[in-house]
């Protein structure tokens, strides 16, 4: 996706090769300024939050020299404080009265995950059932811009500070299918709405953002020169730390790289909050001490903690902990983490680092990021788990990436009646664990041990041939919140499912349900065959000859053309 991004002003052309860092640094200051200017529109309940935000920004070290850890801590200070106890309730009370429409600018990756993340965070900050819709224009839901209705700027800032897939949230001043139409809309906006941000004492800058295409330097200069037609800013231009930042953005697919071309959609808005994404680099897997073949991408792991609404003082369980890559994200949210795995190698022994020769394990990762050690690591089998009866509701969230047989297959303990000679050194035998059974056990564990209102977030594989809504795992105590797809290759994808525990565990109902699902097997249990099917086998299937499951239903969909997606997916 080609995209040119430069910072331009009415007086200067500023073309730094990588202006990202400068823009991000300026954003922090701009956000701080915006909170002071906009106090008129905020309710009294929000002022506590606002103070926190200001406090947070003072703590924030300069971006250029910031160590990732310190910076993250500063970022999370606000997020953790915001939802705790009374604050969120007060916020939700104020949210029911009035909301304002904002423009949210998403990153162009993990497309289906973006709105569920926004919804989960809004819910966490006291805005249940947040309204968000795709704006007009042909990009529809795949486009980078969406409308979202939020009670105030503080909530917007809190969401942006924690979100993985949001670049920023803006107060929309005008939009249109052409530059002129957008300019006219901004000009038509009542002067009173613009005045607080355009006074002679308010320094500003304008960020030009071309999404899906690029602008030449001359084009950018022309646009900047035309901004005074509709923007009444009287303050001086300040590139490094302006009090207000305006965004002039245009979403248009340029038709490069074989992607379709599209009609442009122009937006002009005032920046409310801009994401600081410097943490992504800090948690990158290549720099992590201990990783394995199935370690979770850090961005996805942080996304999972957002979907699960992991917050300070939560107790979080990962039943398939592996190298601890999901728990690291939860620990970075100041949660207390607990992990289990059936494989003792990953848990206990770790591995030798090829470079330093040092032995590394899960604890090394926690040390690397300066995180609080896990409260417990266990070797156990989820299928026959040792959690005590009557333990009740313990975990605030359960996050997991169950083994599904493409890179690592599931195993469970097996009952056999042969004699065991040396009990102390005996290695119990295991047998393959079908995905249906694995997920049923996971959901049952969640139904018992989650607090009511707690969330279960897990990945499961899917393929275009076998995916059907009614094949999703379910449980009478759990309700599905979101279920989104991440395409991996043409033959299979993985889905991230978020569930919430809606009522206390009832053993009778759960037993009845288990009995009713006794013979249920998910089609995806033959995922390994699908992924590793040779061309020839596919051909046979295509001819209707020997389809794997004996039905010819899936055969016609083998060549499913993927929806238009970015390469990053």
């Amino acid at each position, binding site marked *: 996706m080609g995209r040119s991004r430069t910072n331009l002003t009415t007086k200067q052309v500023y073309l730094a090769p990588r202006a990202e860092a400068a823009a991000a640094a300026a954003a922090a200051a701009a956000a701080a300024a915006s909170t002071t200017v906009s106090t008129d529109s905020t309710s009294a309940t929000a002022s506590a939050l606002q103070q926190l935000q200001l406090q947070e920004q003072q703590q924030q070290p300069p971006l250029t020299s910031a160590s990732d850890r310190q910076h993250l801590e500063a970022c999370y200070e606000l997020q953790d404080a915001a939802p*705790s106890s009374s604050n969120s309730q007060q916020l939700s009370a104020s949210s029911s009265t009035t909301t304002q429409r904002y423009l949210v600018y998403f990153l162009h990756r993990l497309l289906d995950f973006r709105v569920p993340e926004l919804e989960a965070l809004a819910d966490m900050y006291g805005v249940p059932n947040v309204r968000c819709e795709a704006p007009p224009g042909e990009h529809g839901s795949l486009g980078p811009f969406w409308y979202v209705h939020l009670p105030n700027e503080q909530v917007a800032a809190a969401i942006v500070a924690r979100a993985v897939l949001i670049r920023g949230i803006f107060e929309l001043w005008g939009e249109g299918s052409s530059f002129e139409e957008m300019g006219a809309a901004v000009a038509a906006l009542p002067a009173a709405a613009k005045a607080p941000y355009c006074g002679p004492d308010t320094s500003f800058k304008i960020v030009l953002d071309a999404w899906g295409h690029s602008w030449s330097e001359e084009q950018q200069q022309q646009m900047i020169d035309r901004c005074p037609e509709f923007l009444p800013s009287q303050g001086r231009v300040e590139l490094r730390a302006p009090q207000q930042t305006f965004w002039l953005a245009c979403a248009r697919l340029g038709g490069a790289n074989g992607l379709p071309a599209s009609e442009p959609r122009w937006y002009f808005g005032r920046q409310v909050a801009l994401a600081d994404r410097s943490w992504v680099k800090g948690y990158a897997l290549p720099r992590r001490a201990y990783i394995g073949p199935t370690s979770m991408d850090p961005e996805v792991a942080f996304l999972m903690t957002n979907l699960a609404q992991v917050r*300070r*003082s939560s*107790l979080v369980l990962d039943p398939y902990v592996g190298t601890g890559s999901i728990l690291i994200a939860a620990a970075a949210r100041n949660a*207390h983490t*607990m992990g289990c795995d*059936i494989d*003792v190698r990953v*848990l*206990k022994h770790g591995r030798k680092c090829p470079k330093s020769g040092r032995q590394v394990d899960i604890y090394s990762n926690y040390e690397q990021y300066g995180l*609080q*050690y896990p*409260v*417990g*690591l*266990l*070797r*156990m*089998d989820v299928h*026959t*788990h*040792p*959690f*005590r*009866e009557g*333990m*009740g*509701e*313990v975990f605030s969230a359960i996050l997991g990436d169950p083994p599904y047989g493409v890179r690592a297959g599931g195993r469970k*303990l*097996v*009952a*056999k*009646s*042969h004699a*065991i000679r040396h*009990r*102390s050194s*005996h290695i*119990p*035998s295991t047998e393959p664990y079908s995905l249906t059974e694995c997920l049923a056990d996971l959901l049952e564990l969640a139904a018992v041990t989650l607090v009511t209102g707690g969330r279960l977030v897990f990945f499961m594989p899917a393929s275009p041939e076998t995916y059907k809504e009614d094949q999703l795992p379910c449980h009478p105590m759990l309700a599905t919140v979101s279920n989104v797809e991440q395409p991996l290759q043409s033959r299979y994808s993985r889905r991230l499912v978020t569930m919430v525990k809606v009522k206390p565990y009832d053993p009778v109902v759960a037993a009845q349900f288990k009995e009713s699902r006794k013979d249920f097997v998910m089609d995806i249990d033959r995922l390994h065959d699908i992924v590793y099917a040779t061309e020839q086998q596919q051909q046979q299937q295509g001819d209707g000859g020997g389809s794997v499951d004996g039905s010819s239903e899936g055969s016609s969909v083998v060549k499913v053309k993927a929806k238009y997606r970015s390469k990053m997916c």
Partner: protein
Amino acid sequence: MKLLTHNFLQCHIKGVKNGYPLNIEAVKIEERDADFDPDFLRSMFKRIDWKAFLVGAQALGCAEGLPQAVSEEQLQDDGFLQKFHHALLEVCLEEGSLICPETGRRFPVVKGIPNMLLNEDEV
């Protein structure tokens, strides 16, 4: 293994009725500082079995100053919470065993990680 984990575990061998709490046989005990988080402690207090916790604290030698029963006021008292915090989250069993009170089955704890896997004839 910390006492919080110990509190959640029982012997789950098929047919065992009386597998809780597991007795602790300590070989090596370590103490590691953990962040003091009163909110977490209060929420955990509601979710753990206090009697089993005391049994565990006794075995790990950190039961001093922990009352037999805890009142609402104590949960607001920093002095009590500090002691609770220390026993629950800072004292770790590094090497030793968890022993089923009914069958005497030993679950080894190595490098602080209890092995709760069952053998084929126990599932």
